[in-house]
């Protein structure tokens, strides 16, 4: 099969990102033909809107994964910091101060995560897993009283527009996701810390010997991810009129990793960019929307999602083999 694909010539230049993009276009075309309501402008917007939060979280995950880490505490951080903010507003605090407190909480928690990983040298998988449990447990026990769901207070002010309403006909969650994507792109491409994160993810020892501030950069990437999680939480809460803290126990964090990996971001660090996350998110959006219109069961949807991920990864490893040949260039 590998030889067959290679002999097609142009196909040789495909990589996972392009495969996933083509897959998205193909699915889109097929759904447009067989599903009567799919191509309606409203449906397209609601399709993108439904994955906007996933995309925002994916961007946070991207920054961490580029630095050869992983952040499993994103969803917990998002849910608890925003739920606490909402509760403070309900309790009479001004919206601005409550939001600041929530943001500082998210940043503070991710700062601790970053310090644990960079200075205590705990592997990111364990550190963030522990922090996810800690944030959720601490939040439920001491910050959020009452039920799992914290409803949006009526006097939340202009923030409501982040989750509801449209601007120039486009739902605002999409615009927020677009803005975060643009900022993440500019950060990764045009700032020193952005380039350093790529370098550290590629080769930690080389980065350190070259004189980069490697440990502070590790902390920075987790703190940024925490800030992005807070934004994602605000969008979630304002569109759903509530923040359900039980989302921490859902498989949302796996969906976040899914869109990042699906788009072709290398989990081994240093490879990938914002475009990969956008492509991965769009594929999931098209897929979920089409399957929902077709009225497929949730469990079936999960099976299809996982199959798509496996196909993308297998196709990539056939087209871009990582063997002795590519792993040991230089002396052929």
């Amino acid at each position, binding site marked *: 099969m590998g030889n067959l694909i290679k002999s097609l010539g142009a196909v040789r230049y495909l990589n996972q990102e392009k495969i996933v993009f083509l897959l998205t276009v193909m699915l889109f075309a097929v759904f447009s033909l067989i599903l009567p309501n799919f191509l309606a402008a409203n449906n397209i917007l609601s399709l993108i809107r439904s994955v906007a939060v996933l995309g925002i979280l994916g961007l946070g995950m991207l920054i961490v994964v580029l630095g050869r880490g992983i952040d499993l505490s994103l969803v917990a951080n998002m849910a608890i910091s925003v739920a606490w903010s909402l509760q403070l507003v309900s309790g009479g605090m001004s919206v601005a101060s409550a939001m600041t407190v929530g943001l500082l909480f998210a940043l503070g928690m991710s700062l601790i995560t970053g310090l644990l990983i960079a200075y205590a040298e705990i592997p990111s998988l364990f550190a963030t897993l522990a922090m996810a449990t800690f944030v959720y447990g601490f939040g439920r026990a001491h910050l959020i009283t009452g039920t799992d769901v914290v409803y949006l207070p009526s006097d939340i002010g202009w923030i409501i527009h982040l989750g509801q309403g449209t601007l120039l006909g486009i739902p605002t969650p999409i615009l927020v996701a677009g803005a975060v994507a643009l900022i993440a792109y500019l950060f990764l491409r045009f700032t020193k810390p952005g380039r350093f994160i790529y370098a550290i993810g590629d080769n930690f020892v080389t980065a350190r010997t070259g004189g980069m501030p490697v440990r502070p950069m590790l902390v920075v990437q987790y703190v940024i991810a925490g800030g992005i999680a807070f934004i994602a939480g605000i969008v979630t809460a304002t569109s759903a009129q509530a923040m359900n803290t039980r989302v921490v126990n859902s498989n949302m964090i796996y969906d976040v990793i899914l869109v990042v990996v699906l788009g072709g971001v290398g989990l081994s660090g240093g490879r990938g960019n914002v475009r990969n996350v956008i492509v991965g998110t769009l594929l999931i959006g098209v897929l979920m929307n089409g399957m929902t219109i077709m009225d497929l069961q949730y469990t079936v949807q999960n099976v299809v999602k996982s199959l798509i991920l496996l196909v993308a990864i297998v196709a990539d490893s056939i087209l871009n083999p990582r063997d002795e040949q590519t792993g*040991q260039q230089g002396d052929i």
Partner: protein
Amino acid sequence: MQPIVELKNVTKEFYGVPALRDVSFDLAPGEVHALLGENGAGKSTLTKIMAGVHEVTTGELLVDGKVESFKTPAEALQKGIAMVFQETSLVPSLTVAQNLYLGNEKFLNRLRGIYISAQQFLQSLNFGVDPTMFVSQLGAAQKQMVEIARAVHHKAKVIIFDEPTATLTPEEKHHFFSLIRRLKSDGVSIIFISHALEEALAISDRITILRDGQHVITDDVKKFDRDKIINAMVGRTLSGELYGKAGDKRAPRPYGQKILSVQNLSMGKMVRNTSFSIYSGQITGIFGLIGSGRTETAKIISGVVKRDFFHGGEVKLEGRSVRYRVPRKAVKDGIVYVTEDRKLEGFFETKSIAENIYLNLLAADLNKGLTVSYSEMMELARHWTEKLNVRAINNSARVVELSGGNQQKVVIARSLVQRPKLIIFDEPTRGVDVGAIAELHHVINQLADSGLAVVVISSYLPEVLNLADRILVSRQGRVVEEFSMEDATEEKIMYAAVH
């Protein structure tokens, strides 16, 4: 006599780029056949075809007269062809004995049993390696020994050695060559890839030379001498200019300002109470056998590792006492270290040549402006690749795609953009072809002429003798002797290094 392995008109292409063009090669039973050529000449590709790593694009591979097409190294091994790779292929988390028996374990794998038989086997080869050690604890030379032992252990009829002696000390090399002679007398055929021409001349029966993927010459070793080989390898004679002939010694550079003084430096078991000074405007060569603490000393000075907290000694940079916790501080103070292991810690493999160079400028905070500038990056890369004569398609090519010599030039460019006062080269020409060695030496000489303090750590005596204005000899973790350029000879230096 029928050749044991034969290649007929083999062409091998990688993505349409030929690495071998119409090469024929044969290996007689029981001969030692040296395969020589610059980096990128196709030596590794040729042997990897025999070892089942690559398949031929066109042409035939014959083993014992029968056409074969190996899909995996395991199939080649079944036919008795084993390869000892340049990059070690051992499992670091297993012991030496477990690695030796890897793939041949009995169903009930008694550890004590394999330790005993591994011990006997290693002793029979005269290899001083403890079979119960974990491979991750071994030095490069010992890993190489285990790798060789494994090939011998598989009772291969053909063993291919890719640069086997690069990491060995003279004594270990001596053992290695006697092992090769013994294997040969047992009827094993050996292919020997090396950059060390003297070794090839000393040990082999026949020599084949490749250049740019094409066969140049195969002949009996008696028909060759050093100059003839180099001539065939590069198509020009440069032996003389490379390692300056005896008698035409240049005058040593004068001592400049004392830039670094090291007093009683210690770190663990590797660096023991060593003291020396480095001066600007000249090249200080540090010679020592592997394990003599040269690299560790350099890494302490450049902040890559920390020295002992108690009795760690003192390092003074321009009279000021310094103690670096991270390399970043050393880089800012103008000390850079050019690693001996460029593949592991020399460059970023997913990044282009240009970005590799630019990232070090950013790391030293020497870039203009606040943001990353891609035009500054390309301009910087153009300047340095021209200055150091890096040969690549363009500066957007990835560094891993370059040959060893060009990779090393990029690694050096990465260090030079940080505007160092003191630059430490650790084995600057390891795994670099003959042509590039001359260029690298030229660069190093220029740096010293321009007033930099240059340190060259090398295990290769002609290199130290040719480059250095003064030579420090390191032994068992400390600098034991110092020679000026005029009174240094190979014998004196070696005597100081081993006794």
